[in-house]
């Protein structure tokens, strides 16, 4: 029972209070590049949720079942990045075969995800905080959701910003960053819910 409440707590924290984009600043490059329109944001968000859940679980198995027993924890970076690259490649082939509709929606985003630091970051945090397998599942899914929600919200705000007049130099990344700051404040406020 307490295991399950832990699971819920970690998932909730990953989505809101410890949002991986707005609190830990991970995956900021695609966050700024992909938030130009809600449609792209949705595809990218869905792909990240999917990949992050799967990679976190597989990296948990790699770390605790292979690297720790053999005493090669220092190879974690190399193993994680390699496993992420392989998983993304396999997922791409798999989705292409199983569901062409899904592939059309998020296929083009999958290759970009290999170098998305949020994916590697989630795996590293999961090891650092010594989560159990169940908690890792929740953490991976929650982090992906949190990132996707932040991205969607940002794309909504940006589609309004596009139609307004801004001072020179502020357009593009600068205003996006400041908007993200205001969003980060709102997400920090949710810490009280815990």
């Amino acid at each position, binding site marked *: 029972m307490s295991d399950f409440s832990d699971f819920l707590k970690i998932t909730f924290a990953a989505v809101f209070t410890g949002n991986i984009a*707005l*609190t*830990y*600043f*991970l*995956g*900021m*490059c695609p966050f*700024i*590049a992909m938030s130009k329109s809600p449609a792209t944001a949705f595809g990218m968000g869905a792909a990240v949720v999917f990949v992050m859940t799967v990679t976190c679980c597989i990296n948990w198995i790699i770390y605790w079942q292979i690297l720790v027993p053999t005493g090669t924890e*220092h*190879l*974690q*970076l*190399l193993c994680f*990045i*390699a496993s992420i*690259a392989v998983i993304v490649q396999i997922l791409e082939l798999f989705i292409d075969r199983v569901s062409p509709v899904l592939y059309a929606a998020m296929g083009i985003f999958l290759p970009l995800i*290999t*170098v*998305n*630091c949020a994916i*590697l*970051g989630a795996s*590293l*945090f999961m090891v*650092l905080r010594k989560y159990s397998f169940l908690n890792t599942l929740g953490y991976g899914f929650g982090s992906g959701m949190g990132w996707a929600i932040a991205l969607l919200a940002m794309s909504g705000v940006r589609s309004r910003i596009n139609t307004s007049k801004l*001072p*020179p*130099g*502020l*357009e*593009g*990344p*600068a*205003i*996006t*960053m*400041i908007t*993200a*700051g*205001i969003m*980060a*404040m709102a997400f*920090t406020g949710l810490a009280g819910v815990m």
Partner: protein
Amino acid sequence: MKKNKYWETFRFGLIDENPIFKMILGICSALAVTNSVINTLTMTLAVIFVTATSSALISLIRDWIPKKVRMVVYVTIIATFVMVVDLLLKAMFPDISKALGPYVGLIITNCIIMGRAEAFASNNKVILSIIDGAGVAIGYGIILIFISVIRELLGFGTLLGYLIIPVQVPRMMIMIMAPGAFFTLGIVVWIARYWMYHRVSVNVDEVGREK
């Protein structure tokens, strides 16, 4: 003449191709580690080391890397150097290593390094590649240090741990939290872009700028 070319490459990386202003790359760590100057300095040195060495190695073996698998090769090379830095920090400076947490490992996915490998090191000579990598990384580091000075001064009232602002002055806690990072970087980028936009529009007619 020869010396000039090296200096041009360095200057070009430092200012004209500054990763933060021009391309908005590598901002994950720019935001995450800048809440204290000492962490930022460590991070900057690590990035400079990794960019220069991986650029050198990639440039050295550029003729043997098959085009199709080059990304995997680049990532492996970069990951190896990051691992060296990570282990070195853990052994020599355990406190800083703990404070930086996973962000040292995340240098692998810092798009600046990959970008330099792809754009410059893959078709230039070794020495030039080192200079280019170091130039871009130093340009990146200077902005990081600038941001961290602002954040540490306003958030803790200290610089490198020394007290600067008297304790009676209230601290801006928001500066060391996540939103402060976004605001500071946003404003720095704004000022830099405004300045570049002005400087450029006086000298040359740049294509692709709005208005």
